[in-house]
């Protein structure tokens, strides 16, 4: 909360709005103290004086009244009415919304039906009806404007409240012995207040416009008293002959509302937590590249090789080094496992290959990715696009979120094919059905017209795999493809992937956190910790005799079936945060073998035994053991 004024001040437009608004409010407040002419005294002899004329800075109106004085008094009135209406509507609307959203069920249903009914009116009809009933007048206009805005607030706040009421901390509060009233006041309200503030700050300008509008129609403030709207309304008849009488109040409304809107946007941006993290940025078509170091050479002709790849997330003034120099290579037909805990950088490394890391905030700051000897990191967009899904395809974790919800799976498969091959629709459709058959989806002919939400999780992931296979790629990068699935379904998907890869000679990079999965499907495995590879080698070598203490300790943590009730061998502590990396080995803090040497300098990934690499100065196994 403390950061709020700072965030607001950082937004220059909002600051400008704040300053203008501050000036207007101060002027409105001190209006009675200023040496102004009486706003309501008419003097027809002096009518329609031009601005900057003697004794009337902004000129006079059709009855010879001083426009400056009328403007300031009118501003005062308009602001007061606008703010009052906004606060009244927000308070009532929020109360209704919170009650409906929190209690839900029938109460919610009845309240929201009422709100819907009020929203079934174009709002001005309701306002006009209310003014018609109460009679023209500023107070009645205020009531009308506040009343028509209550449903908007109620609906908005209800939506937020429903989301909060279903959060687990509300259940926790209930189990802590709190009553409903107390939960609403101390648990729900503090989470809703920012939304209410945002709603007020973004609608207050609107309220001022609306009250001005009713006055403009002659239904608000009544002569001789004037707010900005009625000034404009009275000036309308002289619009062509004496435009200044219209321009003065109109410009004032514009200035006020614009300042409020700027300020309101600033308040919203400062209070909306999604914007704090910069998450509402649009990811670019490819990840941004800013390589400062010389690009590493491709070693030998391999299918796909990562050389010293570095990817960072730059959020405000912090830099998270998600991938801190990764070397990997995949050979044709090989399945490489990339294993690590969350935050180890395994997914980011995999997404960097085809430039799919969301950017901003992601930036590739170093290294290279060689596909058949060609560096993909600085490849032009069109080159990258022609490879994506064509030669190198992805399978993602959660198949519900990763398929487009509004297109049939057939359309999405057809699109994948047609992005790279000039198939006509019929050919592509036949191909799509073949693809669905190849991933063993029953009734492929019918399923091709299903939407993703009509399928189960396992079926959706099969569609995801079919999509990856669409253009017969050489490499598939599978990012935790079975993590979101149940174990029984996972087993089906894993064996499908394994069969497909053997049938088609696919190379796979398989990202997972599960040693069991690695053991079953991977030929080789690389273990990641804090953005770097700590160990790499043939799956069997590493799983039987892990050389890096992290790998060994992590494997010991995993509960395995068939060992009964027991104490698990946990690793104490937490992985380092990747914006504050320690100097030497990132695991030293948690390692029981760590010595001073581990913490002093960078530790290289060195050959260990015949086929393995390890980043440790005192590995768990001797090089000889590792060669076996």
């Amino acid at each position, binding site marked *: 909360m403390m950061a709020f004024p700072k965030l607001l001040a950082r937004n220059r437009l909002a600051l400008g709005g704040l300053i203008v608004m501050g000036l207007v409010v101060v002027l409105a407040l001190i209006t009675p103290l200023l040496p102004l002419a009486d706003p309501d005294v008419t003097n027809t002899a002096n009518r329609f004086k031009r601005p900057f004329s003697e004794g009337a800075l902004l000129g006079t109106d059709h009855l010879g009244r001083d426009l400056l004085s009328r403007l300031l008094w009118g501003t005062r009135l308009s602001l007061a009415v606008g703010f009052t209406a906004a606060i009244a509507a927000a308070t009532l609307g929020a109360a209704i919304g919170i009650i409906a959203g929190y209690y839900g069920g029938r109460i919610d249903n009845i309240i929201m039906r009422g709100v819907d009914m009020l929203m079934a009116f174009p709002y001005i009809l309701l306002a006009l009806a209310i003014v018609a*009933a109460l009679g023209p007048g500023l107070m009645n206009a205020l009531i009308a404007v506040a009343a028509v805005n209550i449903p908007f607030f109620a609906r908005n706040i209800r939506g937020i409240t429903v989301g909060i009421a279903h959060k687990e901390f509300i259940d926790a509060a209930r189990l802590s012995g709190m009553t409903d009233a107390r939960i609403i006041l101390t648990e729900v309200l503090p989470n809703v207040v920012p939304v209410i503030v945002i709603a007020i700050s973004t609608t207050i300008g609107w309220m001022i416009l609306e009250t001005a509008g009713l006055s*403009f129609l002659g239904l608000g403030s009544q002569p001789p008293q004037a707010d900005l709207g009625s000034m404009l309304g009275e000036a309308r008849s002289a*619009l062509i002959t004496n435009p200044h009488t219209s321009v003065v109040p109109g410009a004032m409304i514009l200035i006020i509302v614009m300042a409020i809107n700027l300020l309101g946007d600033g308040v919203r941006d400062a209070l909306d937590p999604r914007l704090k993290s910069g998450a509402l940025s649009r990811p670019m*078509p490819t990840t941004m590249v800013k390589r400062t170091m010389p690009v590493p050479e491709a070693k030998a002709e391999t299918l796909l090789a990562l050389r010293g790849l570095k990817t960072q997330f730059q959020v405000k003034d912090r830099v998270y080094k998600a991938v801190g120099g990764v070397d990997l290579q995949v050979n044709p037909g090989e399945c490489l496992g990339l294993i690590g805990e969350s935050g180890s950088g395994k997914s980011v490394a995999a997404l960097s290959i085809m430039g799919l890391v969301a950017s901003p905030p992601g930036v590739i700051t170093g290294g290279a990715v060689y596909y058949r000897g060609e560096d993909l990191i600085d490849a032009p967009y069109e080159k990258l696009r022609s490879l994506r899904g064509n030669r190198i395809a992805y399978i*993602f974790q959660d198949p519900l*979120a990763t398929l*487009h919800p509004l297109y049939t799976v057939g359309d999405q498969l057809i699109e994948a094919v047609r992005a790279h091959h000039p198939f006509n629709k019929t050919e592509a459709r036949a191909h799509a059905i073949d693809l669905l058959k190849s991933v063993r989806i029953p009734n492929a002919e019918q399923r091709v017209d299903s939407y993703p939400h009509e399928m189960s999780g396992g079926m959706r992931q099969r569609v995801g795999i079919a999509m990856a296979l669409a253009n017969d790629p050489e490499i598939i990068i599978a990012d935790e493809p079975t993590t979101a699935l149940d174990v029984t379904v996972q087993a089906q998907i894993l064996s499908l992937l394994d069969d497909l890869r053997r049938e088609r000679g696919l190379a796979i990079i398989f990202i997972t956190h599960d040693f069991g999965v690695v053991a079953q499907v991977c030929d080789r495995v690389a273990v990641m910790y804090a953005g770097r590879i700590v160990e790499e080698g043939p799956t069997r070598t590493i799983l039987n005799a892990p050389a890096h203490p992290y790998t060994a300790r992590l494997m010991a943590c995993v509960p395995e079936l068939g060992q009964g009730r027991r104490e698990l061998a946990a690793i104490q502590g937490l992985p380092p945060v990747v914006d504050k990396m320690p100097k030497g080995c990132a695991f030293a803090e948690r390692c029981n073998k760590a010595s001073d040497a581990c913490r002093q300098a960078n530790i290289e990934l060195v050959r260990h035994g015949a086929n393995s690499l390890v980043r440790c100065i005192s590995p768990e196994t001797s090089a000889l053991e590792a060669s076996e």
Partner: protein
Amino acid sequence: MAGYILKRLISALPVLFGISIIVFVIMAMIPGDPATAILGSYATPENVEKLKRDLGLDKPMMQRYFIWLGNMLQGDFGRSFSLNRSVLDEVLDRFGATLILAGTSFVLCSILGIAAGVVSAARQYGLADRAITFAVLLGISIPSFFLGMMMILIFAVKLRWFPVSGMWPIYGARDLYALISHLTLPALSLAVVATGVIARLSRSAMLEVLRQDFIRTARAKGVHERSVIWRHALRAAMVSIIPVLGVQAGFVLSGAVYIEMVFQWPGVGRMLVDAILKRDILLVQGGVVFVAACYVIFNITVDVAQSLLDPRIKT
């Protein structure tokens, strides 16, 4: 689909019923006596009593409501005393003009707003985004009636490109050209605010969608960026844009009241304001119920469009 439309139409009945009750109750709150208002304060008590009986004002509230409702259902909205004309005829005449104005504005603001929002999101923080964001801010901050007045001043009085006001020329042919030249300024003035709101919302809806995983999937498939934006992202964003179009249609219809005043457009909004100032209750009642009912029907169309777009809505 037909079933869904039928279901939505049936579900509109209680809403229409509710609208009629709300309008009736608000009008019943009017202090004083409509009969006196109609006849003026010099009327004799006998005449007032007679009129009250004629208008059914001596009956209890409930009964009066159902009589009014029953008459409306038969197309009898009563007579306007100030115009001495059937309310329904007057409303129908006026509503046509409003529909031309508001409909044109609505089409304009939907197309311009969505296009601006998509471009703005696709070029986030670029020059186009900044320009659009500023224009949008200006658009939603300017009172439409003030904008209309300035348009008259510049484009009608100074430049003489368009007529100052009205719907038809006083002399001359009432053809399409005449209509368009009269319509341009009011329709533009009316569209500006809604364009701003729709552009804003489309931009944030697009930004929201562009962060979704399925956009990454589309890119990973090698789909061209143009298609990612206009096919994948916009289609998904439309799910949240369409309901806003429905709400904005209400705002356009509302804003039309001001614009009709400024441009002397013979629409239903000006009729209502005049009727309120003359305390012609039956005309207000009839006009409000009629327009609100049309708006309900329009919103059903919006819902149907939404269900066509989003297969997750059960039909």
